């Protein structure tokens, strides 16, 4: 089966500072894939390159059969409609309320009736675990966890095939974080999503990830399922998973 994302021999640098030195990884359909590593290792940069927010120097990234280096504007728009992105801080539009934040893409890209749009928004609000009356609140009136949930609802609104999550559980209390993990798992099963996430949260790494890549020192030091990754030796892996092994 062809992978949904394929990264080959990727090099990135910011001015003098080299960030990636030859990354290779692939992500299969229906998989929850984690990008892990110490702070500043370039995992967020890699995700930003995947969603076309950042440029890379050489190598290639293929997403859903589009090559990001050779993509034209029309294909780029089509691709952007196929994925949902959840930013670390939510990045909700502050002048729109939750309902409008979620419905804005539908209003822009489809000709659906207001009735159906309201139904779709209500459904997404429901599955991420928000209350219907929260729909009328503005981002400044939401707590951190609610912001994340609203942002997830917004990322899911177009029924994307691919979901990018940047530290989805950071800033959440432990109970909300576990609920979030469950939510992500059930979404994957329900909607057949493929999910790429950057995470530091050990519990959610154990509970949700199918496969992962550990990026350290500009390279991928380990890749595969949790047990495969644990076997490989790297200072980061040893310290990162140590608490769990004891």
């Amino acid at each position, binding site marked *: 089966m062809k992978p949904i994302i394929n990264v080959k021999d990727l090099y990135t640098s910011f001015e003098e500072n080299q960030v990636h030195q030859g990354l290779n990884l692939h992500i299969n359909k229906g998989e929850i894939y984690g990008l892990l590593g110490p702070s500043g290792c370039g995992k967020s940069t890699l995700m930003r390159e995947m969603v076309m927010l950042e440029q890379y120097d050489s190598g290639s990234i293929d997403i859903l059969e589009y090559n990001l280096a050779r993509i034209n504007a029309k294909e780029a728009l089509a691709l952007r409609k196929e994925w949902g992105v959840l930013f670390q801080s939510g990045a909700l539009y*502050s002048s729109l309320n939750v309902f409008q934040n979620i419905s804005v893409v539908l209003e822009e890209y489809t000709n659906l009736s207001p009735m159906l749009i309201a139904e779709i928004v*209500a459904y997404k609000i429901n599955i991420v675990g928000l209350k219907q009356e929260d729909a009328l609140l503005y981002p400044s009136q939401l707590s951190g966890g609610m912001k994340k949930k609203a942002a997830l609802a917004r990322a899911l609104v177009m029924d994307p095939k691919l979901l990018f999550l940047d530290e989805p559980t950071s800033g959440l209390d432990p109970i909300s974080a576990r609920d979030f993990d469950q939510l992500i798992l059930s979404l994957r099963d329900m909607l057949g999503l493929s999910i790429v996430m950057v995470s530091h949260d050990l519990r959610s790494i154990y509970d949700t990830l199918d496969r992962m890549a550990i990026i350290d020192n500009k390279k991928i030091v380990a890749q595969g399922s949790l047990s495969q990754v644990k076997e490989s030796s790297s200072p980061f892996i040893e310290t990162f998973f140590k608490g769990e092994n004891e």
Partner: protein
Amino acid sequence: MSVLSSPASLQISLQDDCTTCHIQGAFSLHQLSTIESQLRALLSSSNTHSITVSLTELTAFDTAAALLLIQIQEGFESRDIVCQIDIEQEQYSGLFAQVLQSRSKETLRPTAQKKSFLECIGRNVASKADQINSFFAFSGELSFALLSYIQNVKNIRFKEILFEMNESAIKALGIIALTTFLIGIVIAYQSSVQLKVYGANIFIVDMLGISILRELAPLITAIVVAGRSGSAYAAQIGVMKLTEELDAMRTMGFDPYRFLVLPRIIALMIMMPILIFFADIMGVLGGIVVASIELDITPSMFIERFSSAVDIKHFYIGLFKGPFFAFLIGAIGIYRGLMVKNDTQSIGINTTKSVVEAIFAVIMCDALFSIIFTNLGY
């Protein structure tokens, strides 16, 4: 991509008392709108007893499509028409069942509440009254901060004041010089045409001297500074409020008035007369250039006439207005910055308002001075 190929098609067949809809192809969000309008048309026109929606050979199906089917089904049922939905493929019928189960019971659609004319007036008046109140509160805090500021020399943040002087005044010299020089040229050129007719060439000096020193240089300087620094203050402090930097400062015991507000206002008040002095020079220089080209008044003649015809009081009055204008511009800019609410739009609104209100306040103040000085006999 498969989703984008072969959009869903809908076929309606009527048999006895039962309507059957066949949907096939890619039945998902991107291709949903035509099917939706067809189904809704069917919903409003149908008068059979039962209807079957059968979905076969789907190439795509998603939650939006499932929700549409659910809405349509409910619509039929509310009209006492039995509606049955058959989904052939197992994976899609599973999705449909899940959506049906986890669907929200209520849908909340934000409706724009209609306000009556009277309510609008009331709300506007109340919000204006609030604004006046909060401006008084701001002035109060500002005065209080100023009083505690000057009680002790140690309190005064010389470094910040000097920094702001450079930012909002020294760096504005270029644009102020250019603007007032051009204004000098324009005024001199326009009046030279009229003065030539009467042969009163030399009076260009009186005219220019008084109008530039007394009114134009202070006003133009104030307008440039309001557009340049007033808006910068509003945006800067507005963003600091949005990112909770102001709150962080308060929790550390750094009073924002002492650290942010007063240095800016004091810097502007000190620098404004200097800027006006500079503007005076450039404006008169513009006049000299035009006078020597258009009216054959040599620069030395101009200067000689200038010292005898233009009273020094005009110069002093011009400078005297500076600190007042500076206070208005700085205070309004910062006040608008502090008024920024929790969304990005309000930064834009408040920045715009800061410039408009500052210029308005400066002109009001100028008019007031004009009346006062004339009545005092200056």
